[in-house]
């Protein structure tokens, strides 16, 4: 990994900044979603007594854990100026293959290896097609999504594969000292990714590629290699998401994860990451995921019509992007 001079590219936890004058705006974007999260939570706290209880807040994190983990991967790809539509399909395939491996061998380790391995391979495949194959990421991952889901259905014959040993379910349904693993794992992952993105040269290069890939390449950085790595990393995170998912529901289902790619992208965008790449923050993404989870949970607690919930979520996404656009000026 080549290092980049510290003074050329800087970034903060709340967003990258390619120039000092930009810093305040990117900070605002991150802060905007945080303030929105707090206010939304305030509305729910007032309207539903069940909302602010510790158990419910824990429920919310458990409910958004899968989306939050795969959204982190989606964010890395979006930072490089790419997009990943394959996560839902890859999640289903990784889940089905891992479920089948566990059922056949009774080995938790094998199940985890198959789950993560499948997802990393698909990430790598998308990366190769995008970089060396020069296929636009949108089209490429649309294709790999369809391939992955197709294989999941062919392999399973459309029938879910269910019933795992407790050890295999640990990531999705276990707890340590009363705290669900679905809370611990995302927190650990986000802490690591924050460090990677903010404190390592790799993180700075990811931002640089998204800001201006050609210029980054001309500084002597092998951008293709880094993009390949980013797609594989996103694959790994999708695999972890799949592991959490199947552990939670105790079943590998070929139809699972439909629409998860869009939810992940929505979390990234609500968190203030620019879809054109180069700007965004890991903290924003986790806030974006939390906003989606809080809205869904809070509206449920308030007896809001399920159909109406989509309207609210869609409205939030639209406004989030609108704010993103305006703050770019």
């Amino acid at each position, binding site marked *: 990994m080549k290092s980049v001079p510290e003074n050329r590219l800087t970034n903060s936890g709340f967003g990258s900044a390619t120039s000092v004058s930009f810093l305040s*705006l990117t900070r*605002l974007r991150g*802060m*905007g*979603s945080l*303030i*929105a999260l707090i*206010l*939304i939570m305030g*509305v*729910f706290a007032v*309207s*539903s007594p*069940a909302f602010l*209880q510790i*158990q*419910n807040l824990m*429920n919310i994190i*458990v*409910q958004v854990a*899968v989306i939050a983990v795969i959204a982190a991967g989606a964010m890395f790809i979006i930072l490089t100026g790419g997009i990943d539509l394959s996560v839902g399909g890859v999640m289903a395939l990784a889940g089905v293959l891992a479920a089948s491996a566990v059922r056949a061998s009774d080995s938790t380790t094998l199940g985890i290896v198959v789950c993560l391995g499948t997802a990393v391979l698909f990430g790598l495949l998308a990366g190769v097609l995008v970089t060396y194959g020069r296929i636009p990421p949108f089209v490429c991952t649309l294709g790999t999504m369809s391939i992955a889901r197709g294989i999941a259905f062919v392999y399973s*014959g459309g*029938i*879910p594969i*269910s*019933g795992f040993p407790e050890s295999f379910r640990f990531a999705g349904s276990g707890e340590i000292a009363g705290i669900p693993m679905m809370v611990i794992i995302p927190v650990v992952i986000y802490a690591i990714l924050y460090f990677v993105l903010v404190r390592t040269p790799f993180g700075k290069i990811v931002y640089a590629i998204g800001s201006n890939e050609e210029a980054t390449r001309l500084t002597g950085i092998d951008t293709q290699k880094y993009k390949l790595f980013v797609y594989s990393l996103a694959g790994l995170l999708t695999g972890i998401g799949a592991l959490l*998912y199947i552990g*939670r*529901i*105790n*079943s590998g*289902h070929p139809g*699972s994860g*439909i*629409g998860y790619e869009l939810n992940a992208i929505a979390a990234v965008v609500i968190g203030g990451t620019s879809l054109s790449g180069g700007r965004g923050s890991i903290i924003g993404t986790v806030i974006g995921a939390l*906003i989606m989870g809080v*809205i*869904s*949970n*809070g*509206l*449920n*607690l*308030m*007896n*809001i*019509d*399920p*159909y*109406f919930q989509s*309207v*609210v979520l869609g*409205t*939030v996404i639209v*406004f*989030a992007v*609108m*704010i993103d656009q*305006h*703050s770019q000026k």
Partner: protein
Amino acid sequence: MTITKRTFLAVMSMTLPLVLGAGTALAGNAKVFGYAVQDLGNQYWVAVANGVKDQAKTLGVDVVVMDARTDAARELSNIDDMIQKKVDAILLSPWDANSGANAVAAANKAKIPVFVLDIGVASGSIESLIVSDNLKGGRIAGEFVASKIPANAEVAHISCQPGYVIPALRGQGFKEVMKEKGINIVASQTAESQRAKGMDVMQNILQAHPNLAAVFAENDEMALGAVEAIAAAGKSKQVLVVGFDGTGDALASIKDGRMAATVAQQPYEMGKLGVDTAVALLNDGKKPEGETYVPVKLITSDTLPAK
């Protein structure tokens, strides 16, 4: 200054829909039921949900409907939210028997009674499974077929996936009647609940049994596939097709004189019965049967609903 303005805009725009949404929330804190449904994008479940809502209103119970949108994880999240909301009973139409088992386990832990509407659950403690009388439905289909064909005729049976318990009961009821009437089932194959597979399977059966007089499929999709295969073979006048479910497509096919009959489930009635059963237990202490049956009815061209 502009920064504060933008922050204000951001915050207001995100909270506005929530404030608007708050107005539509139910106010009462009487008995509250939760209905966790697998997919409100599907007419069948919309009908069950409407039955639940209407009957709850009639009986003065609030009901929270949460839609899993075909996602087992969201189903579990919905159950968690219901537990958090301290509903008095959970009515559940699970995504499948396994996801249902997880949902029931969570509700059991929270000591909230669960009434399962259709599908069934693989494990866990439930008060009652409210489900169409599938065995009876299969028998009704059998009686209809038997009344239309001679006793020495050949009939076929197309089943859903092996291991699917509920549709298998339909097949069982049908086979019972055929046995009682001494009618010979010459072929019994699975088409995995799908229309396209139903067509393939029917083609094969017709190949082997050109004199077939009737076929019973355990759902309408497969029956509609069979109808196509029979039409392609030019045997529409010869082979009687009976399905199960009463879907819109099936009713249209009966109207066109292509399918002979279907055994219709009554999802709206199922929703009502679910609420009745739960209210009977919670308010009147009336313990339900392990399985509560929703009547099914035969629909032929003579008994088609008006529209």
